[in-house]
């Protein structure tokens, strides 16, 4: 099990995260949005490995660092410090969205304030956006 920070100890939050983690399949390239999605890899089932894409330009994003490992040049889109897994690659944001548009990312999980039962999402600006499956 990967160790990742989980904000708060809320049972409801953990249930949502655990359920989301069931969507991972072995070998997937996964993009995680800001918020609860970033905690999902902590609940990866045994024997399942995924490669995490960070849209600011990382393939193979690793766990959060331990004290002393933190690097100001190594962060995720949520501005949190992260690490790299062995085999990671680094590139610009244009490449990052290029590989998303090319259909190379298998799964993305978006964080939202509120989600409607048909997939509408409410974000900070208060505009409803349709969730799309990539």
């Amino acid at each position, binding site marked *: 099990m990967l160790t*990742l920070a989980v904000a708060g100890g809320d049972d409801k939050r953990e249930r949502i995260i655990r359920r989301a983690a069931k969507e991972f399949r072995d070998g997937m390239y996964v993009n995680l949005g800001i918020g609860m999605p970033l905690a999902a890899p902590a609940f990866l089932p045994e024997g399942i490995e995924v490669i995490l894409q960070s849209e600011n330009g990382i393939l193979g994003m690793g*766990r959060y660092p331990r004290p002393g490992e933190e690097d100001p040049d190594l962060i995720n889109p949520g501005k949190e410090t992260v690490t790299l897994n062995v085999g990671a690659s680094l590139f*610009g944001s244009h490449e990052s969205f290029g590989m998303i548009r090319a259909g190379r990312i298998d799964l993305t999980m978006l964080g939202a304030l509120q989600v409607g039962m048909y997939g509408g999402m409410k974000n900070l600006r208060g505009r409803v956006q*349709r969730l799309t499956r990539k």
Partner: protein
Amino acid sequence: MNISRDGDLLTCEVQTGQLPMKYHPDGTVAVMSDVKETRDFKGKPFVMEESIAGDYAFVKVDKADRLGNCRFRKAQNNFNEVMGKNAQITIVEADHIVEVGEIAPEDIHLQGIYVKKVIQSTEEKKIEKLTFAKDPEKLLEAGE
């Protein structure tokens, strides 16, 4: 605005100019999006987006030489490379200014041809959200 389960409503509204881009303080629409041209390529529809035309780009790099060749460190690239290549005049702020030849040719991420000026960075490098890994035992306790 009606939300439908079928189809990608947001893309459609941006394309046809039906998406509000800006509101008045009273909530009425101030500016609607422009209608965007679409074209099919190999049976798939695409929306035409014009590229940004930057006059100036302010770009942050790890290493730069006097020719303007730049190298990014770790996840420093972001939009620096592409904005640096886009703008008419690119000004680079470098953590380290090095001798020409010190950056291996294959390690150059932003080529000097795109760069007008290189300036030594004097800002302290900070972390906005210092986030550490949680102990696996503490993680299990938190769930109860």
